[in-house]
């Protein structure tokens, strides 16, 4: 049996995720995975388009609020707009769940958070190191647990925002 290759050369000229996508969709999708300020030329590399095309689409996405742009840097840098995307997620929760369901879920998450605080004997997951274990698998398991703990804390805030939106008919501020 031939040896398994974890990083084969792509058989197609297009990368797998790019197939059937137009330039705008590719730039949009790449931007959704960009979490630190990045020049348009680097985004163009991943999206397989010209830097000019990437810049045009990124500026459009920035106007829509989906991408945030840092114009102080040279070159100008882009990344996904976490604030906008969080609001979008909260709006979807507010739309699809009742206020009672949201409140119930928050209390479940509060319990989960208390369990993590007991397990790690700490209240701040960022103070717990995920990587100082002996075995590779122990590192992996601990990293996953600390990550999920941080996720629980973040999601409690997301549901709180969703509750506000649900109670105010989709608005952040009562009319």
């Amino acid at each position, binding site marked *: *049996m031939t040896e398994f*290759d*974890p990083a084969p050369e792509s058989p197609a000229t297009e990368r797998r995720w790019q197939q059937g996508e137009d330039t705008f969709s590719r730039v949009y999708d790449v931007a959704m*995975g960009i979490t630190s300020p990045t020049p348009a030329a680097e985004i163009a*590399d991943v999206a397989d388009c010209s830097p000019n095309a990437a810049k045009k689409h990124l500026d459009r996405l920035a106007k829509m609020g989906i991408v945030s742009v840092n114009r102080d840097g040279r070159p100008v840098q882009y990344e996904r707009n976490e604030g906008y*995307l969080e609001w979008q997620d909260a709006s979807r929760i507010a739309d699809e769940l009742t206020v009672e369901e949201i409140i119930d879920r928050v209390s479940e998450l509060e319990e989960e958070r208390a369990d993590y605080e007991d397990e790690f004997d700490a209240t701040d997951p960022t103070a717990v190191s995920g*990587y*100082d274990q002996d075995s*590779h698998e122990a590192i992996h398991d601990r990293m996953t647990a600390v990550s999920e703990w941080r996720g629980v804390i*973040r999601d409690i805030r997301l549901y709180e925002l969703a509750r506000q939106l649900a109670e105010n008919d989709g608005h952040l501020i009562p009319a």
Partner: protein
Amino acid sequence: MGPDPPTPNSGSPGPPDRQTLQLLARHLRNEALIVETAFDPDSYEPRLLHALVDAGQYPEGVIAARLDIRWFTTGDFSFHYVETHEDESRWECRWDRHPNPHNARLHFHEPPTAVDATDLSLSSRHPLDIYSTVLDAIEGRIQTLWEN
């Protein structure tokens, strides 16, 4: 998107990256290899993304195959591929990126047990490029199974 910079084996992993997991799920749903995707615990709080590989594409002997994906806001990740065989054995491997004292931050846990890890080098660490590499590798695995 250059080579992986060296990082200290300390600090705290980021929470699950909700946007990236949703992005990957959107692409997995268009994959001919994938029959089903699911978020754990649910789509409101994606922590783990399950993708069920189409068992019909494998030769006899493989009864199920799945890919479990985690992505963290720190850019670390884990793609865990698991085949279940008729004789109840498993064939698994894992593409990982996280600090550890044994291997490069980006490394690969070799099949069939996913225990031993070797350093891995990839030209891009964008989630969609990692996704494409992993799916291409799974396709190669299926091809190898038919050839044997």
